[in-house]
């Protein structure tokens, strides 16, 4: 259960109303996580702007950034984020087969991934696990494929999604009903490790919960 009330897009203040409109452009619906941010429009609108800046073509195209988002949120065991971005990724052309191969180290040998994408995912994994111990080879590979503006965008994307994962899980943000019963691609490949994610999976996504 969410720790704060979901604010209503219809009655939101003008700042949050604009935020909800931008959310619908990217996710095709207002999201529960944005509704929780609506309890503090000043900070919430600044927080969500970071994600709006990420979820568009920038120094790196949006589709490529989705790979870092899927990888970092899966490693962070965030069922809410993973579910949202499985849907967004597929809309952007990342097949479920490609999504599934992002789990663990499968992407390193998967035919669905390019060397550039593998370099990005190697970096993502190391940022999540231990950002102070990223090895020289990983950085060298990243630099072969990405310039400084792109590296900032990539690492900022990973960091932002670790942040939003913890925000959503701490606030108890629930998946929107439209996702209930949807089979998880990434968590089907590797079950969640945390009790919280396992609970979400059982309560919201497992088909048995909706029979």
């Amino acid at each position, binding site marked *: 259960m969410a720790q704060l009330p979901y604010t209503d897009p219809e009655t939101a203040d003008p700042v949050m109303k604009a935020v909800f409109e931008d959310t619908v452009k990217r996710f095709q619906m207002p999201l529960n996580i944005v509704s929780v941010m609506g309890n*503090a429009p*000043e*900070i919430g609108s*600044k*927080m969500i*702007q*970071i994600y*709006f*800046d*990420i979820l568009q073509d*920038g*120094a790196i195209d949006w589709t490529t950034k989705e790979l870092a988002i899927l990888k970092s949120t899966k490693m962070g065991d965030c069922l809410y984020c993973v579910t949202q971005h499985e849907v967004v990724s597929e809309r952007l052309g990342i097949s479920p087969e490609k999504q599934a191969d992002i789990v663990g180290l499968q992407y390193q040998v998967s035919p669905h991934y390019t060397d550039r994408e593998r370099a990005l995912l190697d970096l993502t994994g190391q940022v999540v696990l231990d950002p102070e111990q990223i090895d020289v080879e990983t*950085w060298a590979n990243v630099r072969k494929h990405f310039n*400084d*503006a*792109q*590296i*900032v*965008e990539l*690492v*900022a994307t990973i960091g*932002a999604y670790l942040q939003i994962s913890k925000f959503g899980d701490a606030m108890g943000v629930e998946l929107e009903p439209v996702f209930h019963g949807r089979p998880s691609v990434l968590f089907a490949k590797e079950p969640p490790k945390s009790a919280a994610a396992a609970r979400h999976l059982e309560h919201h996504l497992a088909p048995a919960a909706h029979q």
Partner: protein
Amino acid sequence: MAAVHLIEREEAEAGVADVFEAAERHFGQVPNLVRALANNPTLCRSITEFMIAGLAQAVSTGASKSS
């Protein structure tokens, strides 16, 4: 050593000049984090504005956020 070049104020794109000014006003100097972010002006702006808003006193006191 920083993973990316730290942008000096003089070499920063015009689009982030006001972000550098806001960061300096708020933190007393332009933090290296902001200089690293300045390689990507769009995210430099949104992340710096979020940090400044988060440390503002509108919602709760600075003391309670830093303790």
